[in-house]
């Protein structure tokens, strides 16, 4: 009887010792850990600062140069090569607005339609549907100048032969951002749980009634967010527009189908920025400020929309 009693006592002692060691460890953090943790956090912070530095530099430079040129005249006066103090962005602003209206008209139905086909109808076990999916992912990463060449070859000339008109530029930009819209819309549609579709089908709704009345309304916030982000991308694009006719120096308000040429904000900014005179430089900077404010407002609205209407299932 003494033997097991002694063993138990030894076990108790050992357990008490282990507990004391653990408790002591609670209070001391190894020095190496402290240094490594701090270093790592510092590196991460540095990454953020590098990312922000570019934007901050751009903002400071634009405001320093352009704040003197900021005035309501910017929005109302046409550009001028001779009188920089009277030059403005009016045709470019109108051109940009018309361009994005065209983009929205094209991209919303086609983008949602493509997303609905891929999510709701396509049989994913078929190789052609997988091929389409991979291609759309890739298209979103194609450089925008390639879309410019496409627009020039197929829309301005070639099969569509629209000529250098604003609508052709709009269509080119729409093709450029279409993959973005499709991807965003697909994600929004996929986020609608299957239980909603089943609930609707179990009531005797057809597939189309289910999509129209349940799936689409539930995914509208996500789709709208994607469309806004795509439009703000289209608004800032310059390269494809240079190829499809937005290079003309216009002093009149452009119309969608006029062959007289059109302009857009980023192109006009480029136009002013390449001139040697100080006044035009300031004008370009003012244009950049206007663009940044508009883009920031649009992206903020997209984020607000997403957070406000995001459905938590």
């Amino acid at each position, binding site marked *: 009887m003494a033997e097991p009693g002694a063993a138990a006592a030894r076990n108790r002692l050992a357990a008490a010792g282990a507990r004391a060691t653990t408790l002591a460890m609670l209070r001391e953090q190894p020095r190496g850990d402290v240094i490594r943790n701090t270093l790592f956090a510092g590196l991460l912070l540095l990454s953020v600062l590098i990312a922000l530095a570019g934007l901050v530099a751009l903002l400071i430079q634009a405001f320093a140069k352009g704040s003197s040129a900021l005035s309501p005249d910017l929005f109302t006066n046409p550009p001028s090569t001779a009188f920089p103090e009277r030059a403005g962005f009016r045709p470019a602003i109108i051109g940009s607005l018309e361009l994005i209206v065209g983009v929205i008209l094209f991209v919303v139905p086609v983008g949602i339609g493509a997303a609905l086909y891929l999510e709701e109808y396509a049989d994913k076990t078929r190789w052609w549907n997988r091929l389409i999916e991979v291609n759309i992912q890739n298209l979103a990463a194609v450089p925008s100048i390639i879309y410019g060449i496409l627009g020039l070859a197929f829309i301005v000339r070639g099969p569509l032969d629209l000529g250098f008109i604003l609508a052709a530029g709009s269509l080119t930009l729409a093709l450029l951002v279409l993959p973005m819209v499709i991807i965003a819309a697909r994600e929004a549609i996929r986020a609608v749980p299957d239980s909603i579709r089943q609930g609707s089908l179990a*009531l005797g*709704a057809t597939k189309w009634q289910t999509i129209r009345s349940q799936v689409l309304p539930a995914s509208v916030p996500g789709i709208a967010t994607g469309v806004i982000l795509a439009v703000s991308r289209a608004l800032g694009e310059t390269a494809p527009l240079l190829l499809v006719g937005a290079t003309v120096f216009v002093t009149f308000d452009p119309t969608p189908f006029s062959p007289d040429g059109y302009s857009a904000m980023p192109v006009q900014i480029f136009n002013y920025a390449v001139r040697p005179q100080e006044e035009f430089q300031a004008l370009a900077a003012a244009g950049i400020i206007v663009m940044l404010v508009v883009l920031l407002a649009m992206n903020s609205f997209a984020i607000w929309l997403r957070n406000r209407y995001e*459905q938590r299932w």
Partner: protein
Amino acid sequence: MATDESRFETAREAREAAAARAGIAVRPEFQPNSGLAAREKVFELKGIDVLYNGVAAVKDISLDVHRNDVTALIGPSGCGKSTLLRCLNRMNDLIPGAEVRGELLYHGEDLYGPTVDPVQVRKLIGMVFQKPNPFPKSIYDNVAFGPRILGRKDNLDAAVERALRGAALWEEVKDRLSDNAFGLSGGQQQRLCIARCIAVEPDTILMDEPCSALDPISTGKIEDLMIELKKEFSIVIVTHNMQQAARVSDRTAFLMVELDADEQSRWGRLVEYDETERIFTNPADSRTEDYVSGKVG
């Protein structure tokens, strides 16, 4: 006798109306019997197999579901209760690779006949799911969805109220019909799903473990509701909860998992189907007794 006669008339009329809406021609020779045997059959399953991608999930199920009964399907997990239930309103059609073999008659007519449209079938045979799945819309729009897709837009308010009263939810929500359905409690959401289902005016309601996500009080309300609803509808309920089957059902089918000789594949098979009281007090099969007495899970 007079009451039997009148009930027979309404039942027949209801059946014919239901069949006409589904595009199913009623067989002239199919007539329900009078008296006790007039317990009209809603479903007749004859040797039903359900296969997913060629692999059987349930095999050789034969049973009759009677009008105005609550029929319970019980059995352990994986015995194919839900699979069997989803055959009855052709929800399995939505699963790629699903296949139903055997004969499944609905009011005497082949439910899987070549001219039967599954969309019409689901208007007659409603379904309530395991997890409440209200639409992300207002309470009113949830209930009105069914009548709207059926094109019944007159007296929509009255139809919504009738359905909500039928689901014992009206008093709780009548002042906030325009609120989002997601604001309701789980039990209320499930009753809303029942209201949504009966607003379509089906003749049968399938319930797939409707209380498994609910607390005991909400469960009690739904069970009371089932007993109320069976006056008007036929109900088939899948439940994991034997006590629930004993409390609410008139007839109970017990399914079990069966393994093949080398235990490589498994499927569900019907062990016993009888009046609920008999299943729980004096079952014919010892496996049923083991299950309902809790000896096996």
